[in-house]
């Protein structure tokens, strides 16, 4: 009798143990990612299914065991086929390894999904766009054109009037990641013009919009993780091309009289009154300069160049942004300062709204300093094309880079939520060749469950030239840049 009682008691204890996990959170049921092109999965200047299926939100969702994670997938088509954007990759031209077009961005494959996408990364979006962009103008700026595809909130669209924040809340997620602010700061690097209120979002504006976003997401039982903004000098886009003339054959700096020879820029310096003048120490030369350098621009005549200055970006009021390829030290400093200010706001506003912060800024600084030891004796670096972390545009991550972000997010969740989620298998990204494929047939359901037909949708996409939305990323004078490695 006594024994029976003991058995029953221990059985009860066992049942209680088994039942325990139900009451403590071990995983997440519904995940939504908010952000910009880095969240969408842009790589090599385009957004295509090949990379979207390896986006960090998708990898995170896989680790959470969420099967129905929907993204605004876009097809990828051969260069011979009319596309909506250009995908860059490494190519061989003139016997050297360069970057050039390898395929075209195609058309939406998943446009009739009768609910918002779980990946709400909007290429070109800044913090304000996530709360204010309620009705996308398909003929508008990058964020508007992207939102037409990602949010489908164009006039007459299925989600007209619904911002990214609204759509996220419609999905009732218990986990939201927010990686926004990159375009509030780093856009200044792309255009090489650091202008407050134009390429740099004022702190007060960012503060208001980020607060609106985080308070709008706050909800009992929901986990919100904010990712912050990397440093401008951590990007392959700004750190690849040296400030000095490089011998294209040896890839080593040219030395004249024991000195390296700076490239030429349009600003006077202390020792040079009449431009073109040598670039001062600390100037960053963006990847956009490579095609100009190939033409001899920025190289002194004594070394066989044209002697002309590389262009610096500038702003002509009211609304003309003249794109350049140089970030002078004061411009680097103001971009870095704004980045730090916005990161401080991200930390404060996230904390005030019960969200945690994943320090991407620190992660990138660490990767620049020591590389990223991803495992198995493989150390990746932030080097352009050969480092593994950045994609062929030098600005967006590669499949491997996004796998790192996903790994960091899962680790962060395990740290702050006490979950025991398995980390992603990074070998998928490391060992799977990432080369373009052409989709033989693009699915074309004639009509979706909404009030517009697929035909209308396609017309819209072609008419608005969704393509152009991403080309802004490459502020090179030539439309299709062929970039020399190491120049």
């Amino acid at each position: 009798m006594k024994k029976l009682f003991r058995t029953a008691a221990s059985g009860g204890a066992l049942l209680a143990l088994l039942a325990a996990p139900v009451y403590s959170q071990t995983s997440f049921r519904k995940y939504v990612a908010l952000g910009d092109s880095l969240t969408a999965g842009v790589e090599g200047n385009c957004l295509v299914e090949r990379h979207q299926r390896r986006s960090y939100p998708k990898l995170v969702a896989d680790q959470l065991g969420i099967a129905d994670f929907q993204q605004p997938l876009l097809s990828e088509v051969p260069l011979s086929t009319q596309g909506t954007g250009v995908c860059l990759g490494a190519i061989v031209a003139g016997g050297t390894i360069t970057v050039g077009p390898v395929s075209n961005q195609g058309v939406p494959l998943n446009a009739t999904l009768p609910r918002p996408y779980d990946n709400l990364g909007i290429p070109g979006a800044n913090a304000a766009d996530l709360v204010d962009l309620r009705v996308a103008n398909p003929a508008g700026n990058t964020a508007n054109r992207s939102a037409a595809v990602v949010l489908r909130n164009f006039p007459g669209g299925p989600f007209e009037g619904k911002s990214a924040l609204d759509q996220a809340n419609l999905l009732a997620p218990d986990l939201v990641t927010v990686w926004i602010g990159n375009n509030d700061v780093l856009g200044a690097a792309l255009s090489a013009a650091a202008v407050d209120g134009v390429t740099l979002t004022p702190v007060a504006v960012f503060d208001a919009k980020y607060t609106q976003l985080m308070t709008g997401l706050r909800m009992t039982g929901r986990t919100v993780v904010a990712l912050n903004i990397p440093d401008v000098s951590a990007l392959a886009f700004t750190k690849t091309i040296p400030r000095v003339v490089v011998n294209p054959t040896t890839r080593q700096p040219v030395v004249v009289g024991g000195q390296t020879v700076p490239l030429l820029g349009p600003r006077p310096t202390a020792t040079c009154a009449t431009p073109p003048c040598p670039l001062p120490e600390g100037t960053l030369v963006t990847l956009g300069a490579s095609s100009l350098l190939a033409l001899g621009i920025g190289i002194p005549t004594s070394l066989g160049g044209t002697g002309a200055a590389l262009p610096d970006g500038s702003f002509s009021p009211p609304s003309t942004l003249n794109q350049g390829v140089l970030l002078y030290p004061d411009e680097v400093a103001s971009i870095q300062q704004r980045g730090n200010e916005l990161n401080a706001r991200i930390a404060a506003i996230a904390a005030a709204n019960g969200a945690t912060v994943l320090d991407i800024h620190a992660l990138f600084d660490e990767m620049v300093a020591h590389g990223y030891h991803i495992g198995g004796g493989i150390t990746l670096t932030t080097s352009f094309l050969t480092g593994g972390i950045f994609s062929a545009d030098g600005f967006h991550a590669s499949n491997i880079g996004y796998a790192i972000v996903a790994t960091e997010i899962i680790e962060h969740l395990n740290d702050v939520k006490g979950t025991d989620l398995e980390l992603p298998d990074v070998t998928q990204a490391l060992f799977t060749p990432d080369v373009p494929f052409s989709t033989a047939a693009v699915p074309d359901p004639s009509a979706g469950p909404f009030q517009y037909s697929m035909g209308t949708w396609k017309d819209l996409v072609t008419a608005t030239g969704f393509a152009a939305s991403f080309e802004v990323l490459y502020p090179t004078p030539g439309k299709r840049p062929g970039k020399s490695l190491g120049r």
Partner: protein
Amino acid sequence: MTRRGRVRSTGILVSLGFFFLAAAPASPAGFSVFAQGARASGMGLAFTAVANDPSAIFYNPAGLGWQKHFSSQAGGSLLTKIDGEFEGANPFPGTGFGVEEQHKTTFFLPTFYAVVPLTSTVNFGLGIFAPYGLGFRWEDAEQFSGRFIAQNAVIQSSDINPVVSFQLSPSFALAVGADYRLSKVMLERNQPAINPFTQSIVDVAHVKLDSELVDNSGWGWNAGLLWKPTTMFSVGAAYRSGIEIDYEGEARFTQRPTGNPAFDAAVAATLPAGRENVAVTIEFPATWNFGLALSLPGELLLSLEADWTDWSVFDSLFIDFENGALPDLFRETLWKDSWAYRGGLEKRFGNFAVRAGYYFDESPQPLADVGPILADADRNAYTLGFGYETERWGVDVSDIFIDFDERDTRGEENTDRFFGTYKESANLLAISLRLSF
């Protein structure tokens, strides 16, 4: 003349040493090998307070004090890896790689001992044995997911150990010796790189680091004492000093074509063309052995022992390329001192003896350092042995089954960031032959 003569005799010693150079798949903890005689191996390696055959030179040279005849003993062990499996986990190498296997090499570990009585109380002994060895080689080396860390890691060593024992009283002896250690290290791995055209990892070269055969040696010393207060009871202690060896060797880089001429040309431009000089230092640890033995009624001998190894000296591994353009390899190993506990029994039937034993050997390797170069683990070992002896000769045969605890790096800090579980077991078959005059 004198000089030439010395060189020649050193040369003979060295070549003798190389005959005995042996690699062992980490049989006892770390990369030390404590099985240096078949009699000891039958008794769970608890031999410090017994030390009653010429292998005492290794276990406790004070034991020579009671060995009154000229004798020599030759022997060897066959060390066979039974299991050596690795099952990968996320994030690297990922669950998809499945189970990977170590190469199941059998290693031969020879030993040689000679005892020469000089006076009635002073004996000279010479031992040649291999107290340290490592052989960690992975099957399918070109596919093995840890191939960028190690495909094959080898440490071979051979000690030449002359000792002198002094029997100070019928119940007490002590001994001291010099320990000359020759060693050789080798590491093979593949070199990864990002192929810019596929943005994925490819093997671009094979690297082999190999120390030269000469000049990689160091000196140390050893000592022991044995006290037999009654015929029933004995206590022993032995010490072997640490030895630091500075290896000089070379690294050879062999390019692996990837099939993309532009990429291969870029790799060739950065790859060292010839052989590159490398230097490595390994500090071998000091050891202390403490034993006691009890003679029980019925011709029964019980031996117990605790051994301490100063493994904390192995706190880092630094592979230094002479060419400053090549990155040196530095690895924090952070090993800790370790204990082993051993017990053995011997039952005599006239000239015959049957032995059995057990030991627990604690791994000095922290989980963070466990990886494809070496995945060490705590181990339990079970031994059995058999012997026959007369005044003139003796033979001992024994077997040790070594069961390694599973080592699991999942979710842990790991230097290699190489996650998964390692499972190993090994068998050691030992034989010794003694001739006395």
